[in-house]
């Protein structure tokens, strides 16, 4: 099989082009450093390999070193027939510095390089661009295209096939410019081409005046973040009500058409009560992913990182920590990969350790459950804000503040002077986000969340159901096997003011926290015997859980690291299983004691 590498400066559209050519859905986002791992895909019979973007072939960080070693390694490979290098026409000079270095490298390995002059849709007057002239100046095939509008992409596809079939006919011609020579040459080429490149950053500078303004910019930042969390609750609730209604009706319908007995009990309690309670929260996850996507795609994310840089520095973090933190609100696993944008090894490690404190979407069901059970549905501030939305916001802020405190402590404990890479960040242009791909991405994220969590939740709820149903059947929860286990453990949970059922749910959720709601749902289902399926929140209210205990539980869930996959990812990204398990243990203990403090002080 023949393969082609896709290289280029960060944020030049490699991944979007890769997606267009292969039909895959590799992450595309408007900030440098979106791609952190190689991705392979097929374009006809050719294999394409999408690389993380780099600015130069001289590495500044460990990750760049790895990426660059990867280029060399791949270029040695016989299978690699050619190299695609994307050039961003709106940042031509910067793109060419890397482009020319890559060309010199390809030439060294006797491979052709094909330039993809991307983003021509952004060019104001297309006539000004002379592709022939640029091709001649560079001495390698060059195609103008737009991965966004697809202009020129078909032609490009044909060209890469043709070139990969007879690579030796397309080797780079003329003088090669490596290292610093590429910097000078890039300048010359752009000058000769005379595109008037400065035009492109005019707009972005205007918008930055607003979003980075000392006062207005700060307000905008808090408004945007506030809106993000408010919307998770407000926008999602109609959809959630709908799902709840449908599941409830379906439950009644299915169980009523079955003969009473163990099968009907199981379906009612474990399937509808347990798994169904979890499914209700899918819309929130979808909206969260959608809004995070909006922030990434518009270019605002980078501005937010800039705004956060100084404040975060006090806590031993980088402004870039904001990027993984934000994605940690959806899920810690991709967030830990996104932490690779942080050059400084020490700051990255601290960021990695604190990412699990961001309230990920698996915590949403737990938060939502207790908020809807204990916070009235009221408008505050003259009807502008929703009290429940605010409670959500408070929990997210609580997680973030805990992360900052933990970071500050860690960065002061670990004083070891390490060579720290400085903060340098390119500002991408602002772009109008494309609605459809974002919506697709949000749907996809929700689907994969449900699909991944589904089997776990289902198996755990099924086991819990069996333990709670036997030996005496429905309505005899207090004398079930599970109750015996629960009572054994209850001294541990008693100080928090919660009974053994919650204890069991907490324990089960150390596998994955979203299990909590499912387990509780199942337990109430078994207990309630043949009553109608009331909503879980109503059950909890009726059951007399105190406000103080509910708050203690929320604090516990906000901090505890109850996710096996996150521990595994932390181990992988930090390269140390000791760090991973210490983090797990540390957060469990912290969660328990903070919960205890909340319980005692509110009682």
């Amino acid at each position, binding site marked *: 099989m023949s393969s082609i590498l896709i290289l280029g400066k960060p944020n030049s559209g490699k991944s979007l082009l890769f997606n267009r050519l292969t039909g895959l859905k590799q992450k595309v986002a408007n900030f440098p450093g979106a791609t952190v791992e190689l991705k392979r895909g097929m374009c006809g019979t050719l294999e394409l390999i999408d690389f993380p973007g780099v600015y*130069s072939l*001289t590495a500044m960080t460990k990750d760049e070193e790895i990426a660059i070693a990867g280029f060399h390694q791949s270029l040695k490979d016989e299978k690699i027939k050619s190299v695609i290098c994307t050039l961003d026409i709106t940042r031509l000079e*910067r793109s060419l510095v890397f482009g020319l270095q890559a060309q010199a490298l390809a030439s060294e390995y006797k491979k052709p390089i094909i330039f993809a002059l991307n983003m021509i849709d952004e060019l104001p007057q297309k006539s000004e661009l002379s592709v022939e002239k640029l091709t001649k100046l560079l001495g390698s095939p060059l195609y103008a295209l737009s991965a966004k509008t697809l202009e020129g992409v078909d032609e490009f596809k044909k060209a890469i096939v043709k070139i990969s079939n007879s690579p030796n006919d397309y080797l780079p011609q003329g003088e090669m410019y490596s290292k610093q020579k590429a*910097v000078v040459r890039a300048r010359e080429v*752009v000058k000769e081409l005379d595109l008037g490149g400065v035009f492109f950053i005019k707009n972005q*500078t205007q918008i930055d005046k607003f979003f980075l303004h000392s006062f207005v910019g700060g307000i905008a930042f808090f408004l945007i973040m506030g809106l993000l969390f408010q919307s998770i609750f407000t926008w999602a609730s109609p959809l959630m009500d709908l799902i709840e209604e449908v599941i409830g009706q379906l439950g009644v319908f299915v169980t009523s058409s079955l003969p009473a007995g163990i099968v009907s009990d199981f379906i009612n309690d474990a399937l509808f009560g347990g798994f169904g309670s979890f499914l209700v929260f899918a819309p929130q996850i979808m909206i969260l992913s959608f809004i995070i996507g909006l922030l990434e795609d518009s270019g605002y994310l980078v501005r937010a990182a*800039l705004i956060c840089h100084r404040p975060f520095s006090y806590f031993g973090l980088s402004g870039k920590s904001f990027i993984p933190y934000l994605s940690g609100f959806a899920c810690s696993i991709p967030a830990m990969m996104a932490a690779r944008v942080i050059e400084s090894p020490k700051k990255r490690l601290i960021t990695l350790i604190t990412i699990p404190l961001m309230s990920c979407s698996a915590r949403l069901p737990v938060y939502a459950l207790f908020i809807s059970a204990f916070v009235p549905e009221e408008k505050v501030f003259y009807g502008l804000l929703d009290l429940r939305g605010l409670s959500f916001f408070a929990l997210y802020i609580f997680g973030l503040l805990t992360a900052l405190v933990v970071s500050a402590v860690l960065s002061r404990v670990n004083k070891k002077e390490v060579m720290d890479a*400085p903060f*340098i960040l390119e*500002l991408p242009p602002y772009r109008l986000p494309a609605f459809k791909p974002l919506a697709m991405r949000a749907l996809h994220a929700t689907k994969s969340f449900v699909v991944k969590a589904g089997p776990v939740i289902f198996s755990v709820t099924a086991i819990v159901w069996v333990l709670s149903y036997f030996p005496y059947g429905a309505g005899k929860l207090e004398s079930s096997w599970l109750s015996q286990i629960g009572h054994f453990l209850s001294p541990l949970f008693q100080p928090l003011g919660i009974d053994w059922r919650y204890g069991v749910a907490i324990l089960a959720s150390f596998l994955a926290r979203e299990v909590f709601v499912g387990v509780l749902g199942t337990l109430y289902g078994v207990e309630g015997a043949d009553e109608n399926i009331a909503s879980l929140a109503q059950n909890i209210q009726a059951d007399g859980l105190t406000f103080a205990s509910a708050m203690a539980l929320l604090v516990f869930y906000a901090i505890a690291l109850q996710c096996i996959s996150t521990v595994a990812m932390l181990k992988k990204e930090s390269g140390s299983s000791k760090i991973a398990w210490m983090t797990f243990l540390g957060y469990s203990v912290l969660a328990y004691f903070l919960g205890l403090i909340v319980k005692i002080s509110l009682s």
Partner: protein
Amino acid sequence: MTVKTSSLWDIAEKQTALIEDLDHSLEICLSTRLKETGFDFGQSVTCLKKLPLNGPRLYQVADSVFSIEKSVAEKIYIKEAK
């Protein structure tokens, strides 16, 4: 040794300056990267925006905008501030 008094950090918003030199105490890989980013001898750089609390500032070099934090900008020396 010549005394270098003004650095990139000293120029005001909207002001343009020419790069004279990079501090020799910078790590080689960092100064190489700065040059490749356009902060190279003789290049003109404009400060586009300052952020509060001495946050990283926005500098335009050729067709790109980069934000750079104080510790680095202070080590980029400029020749003339227009």
